[in-house]
């Protein structure tokens, strides 16, 4: 039989996750923004039929590597969340650094992919293609900026085991970024 002591410690109120809620709402807005652009792309492609991308070739190597980049970044950023929640600060900094490198590699490879595709805005597909891929690049840069700010704040000691929200929020936005790229990869690069 267990006895409950009379001086039991009252439970703590759950931490209010202001930054996580804010990031969740931003992520929802960004998702609708991006999905709308993908919708325009798919609608135009459906209307154009076989004429779509008749003058250009989209290679598969770069899009696949881009996806791999982002997925590795996702694993790394989650490692950072795990590490900061346990005060393994060195691990957290390494993980955040690798994620940033993955992001930089993504930017580099996306611009290389654009040069390989050789599309121009004057083509009928141009505005749709660049709106979708450019918007995702902007989202990725936004995710990196968010991650960068949170990294510097973590370096300044603002985030730790007792309050890891900033790193968690940046990680959440990075995961959304990866999920949106998966939609782009499937809709634009795979289902040509």
């Amino acid at each position, binding site marked *: 039989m267990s006895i409950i002591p009379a001086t039991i410690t009252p439970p703590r109120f759950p931490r209010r996750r202001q930054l996580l809620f804010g990031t969740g*709402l931003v992520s929802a*807005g960004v998702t609708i*923004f991006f999905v*709308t*652009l993908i919708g325009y792309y798919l609608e135009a492609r459906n209307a154009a039929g076989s004429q779509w991308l008749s003058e250009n070739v989209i290679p598969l190597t770069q899009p696949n590597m881009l996806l791999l980049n982002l997925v590795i970044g996702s694993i790394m950023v989650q490692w950072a969340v795990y590490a900061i929640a346990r005060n393994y600060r060195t691990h957290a900094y390494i993980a955040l650094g690798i994620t940033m490198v993955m992001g930089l590699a993504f930017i580099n490879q996306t611009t290389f992919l654009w040069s390989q595709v050789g599309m121009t*805005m004057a083509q009928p597909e141009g505005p749709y293609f660049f*709106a979708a891929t450019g918007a995702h690049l902007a989202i990725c840069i936004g995710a990196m900026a968010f991650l960068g700010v949170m990294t510097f704040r973590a370096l300044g000691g603002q985030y730790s085991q007792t309050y890891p929200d900033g790193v968690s929020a940046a990680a959440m936005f990075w995961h959304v970024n990866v999920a949106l790229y998966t939609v782009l990869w499937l809709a634009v690069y795979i289902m040509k």
Partner: protein
Amino acid sequence: MTLTETPPETTQEREVIRPRATLVEELLGSGDHTIVGRVYVFLALLMGVIHLGCVAIAGIDTGVSNEILDPSVVDRFNLNTPFGLMLSVALPLMLGLAICVVPLQVGSPSIAFPRAAGLSLWGWFLGSSLFVVSMLVRGGFGGSSEKLGQLGLVSIGLMSVALMIGSICVASTVLSLRTAGQSIADIGHFSFAMLVASTLWVLTLSALVARIVFIFIQHPDPIELLDEYSSLTWIFLQPAIFIALIPLLGIIGDAFATMTGRAMSFHGVVQGAIGVVGLLSFGAWAQNAGSRDALVWAVLGMIIIVPIMIALLASAETLRHGKPTFGSPLVFAAGASTLAVLAGGMSFLIAGNTLGEGDIVDVDYNALSLGLFYLVIGAAIIGGIGGAVLWSSKIWDAPFEEKLALPVAALAPLGVIALAAGPLIAGFATPSIDDVETLMLITGIGAALVALCALDGLGLIAMSARAAMKSSDESADSDDDATSWSGGTLEWAAATPPVAGNFPDGVPSGAGPYPLFGSDEKGDS
């Protein structure tokens, strides 16, 4: 030796003398939710006077002489003012009110992300100002200048992004800064409505921004920009237009409970109905004309009146049990309720008419949709002014004067009905050219009336500021005409006039949505 603790002398409190912030610094750099919200409300009303003035001038000119303005200017006003009325007036008015009231209603000392709230205000004001400039000088939709046309487009995007940032601040406040022990179900109607509305605004405006980005990267000339106009009008049509009505339902609920001095009998029902209106008003999927012929669109448009009626009837039921105090907030709430019901009914008729193989009755769908737009936006403006009057003692340094607020409350619904009457009559009948001119005149007069009401709202704010300055001067007489109300939700426990931190004596504890009411007022007996 490693020093791990801060030397004791540095932890002692020292008196820090900081220079007093100037008015400009306080205005531009403030993250105080009361200041940000006040400025939002003031500027939204100012924009309301400008945009409603443009509608009035265009309508009266068409109806009377057709000689004051060039026809291209009238066309430009007619094309651009709907964007202005929605993004420069109705939504920011509600958002400003929410930035002021929601932290008080959830017992929070501040708004979430206060600097983002300030960024939202000034970003919106910049976008709004650029939009007015582009509309007035050959830009916007229907203008002749390519650069100014693109400026108009960018300013719509800027306003949308700024409103989204403000919405995220408000929603995060409700989600994360509620006082200990207060559940989402226990918050006031306005806070709950703003949680729903903010989420919907983020989801809807982001789709609008996507279209604007897509148009902008093509660098359209004025003709191409005009061709793209129809791809943006879904925001004025049902179901998306109802996102402007959601906060109004919360204001009406809180106004009825406050003016009756009694807890809402069906608090949960009203919250649920507001949530359902939110679900039904998500309209980003209905951007194409083809999607607005679908059965789903027609059904959603028809049933949205049901939760609106439930929310309004459940709110009004409180009047039956309590002893309502006659005052301008009650008149505002009654007028706005009438307009909300009319809007729901019009949505039912428009959507129902598209069922089946084709239109059941031969109507002008565009004209009816414009009438519905005016009804919803007019109701939102009236609700916003009504909310500012209801919570005036908690927002401004002195409560509003009842003798100035009451005429607005009575006149504004009539103005909105006249504003919407022109397009609605034109939609059902097929008017001759002379009749069209008469209908445009009616619309212009209605717009002028609503603009006068917005002007009166600005006057109320100015009088309040003057009264506050007077009251700080001991030799001045107190103003007997100012009236402040009192209710059962947490905002009524905040300091009057507002102070930094909102609750200097702490947030009162109590169960349920009306912790300040006694058991009799809660209906427990």
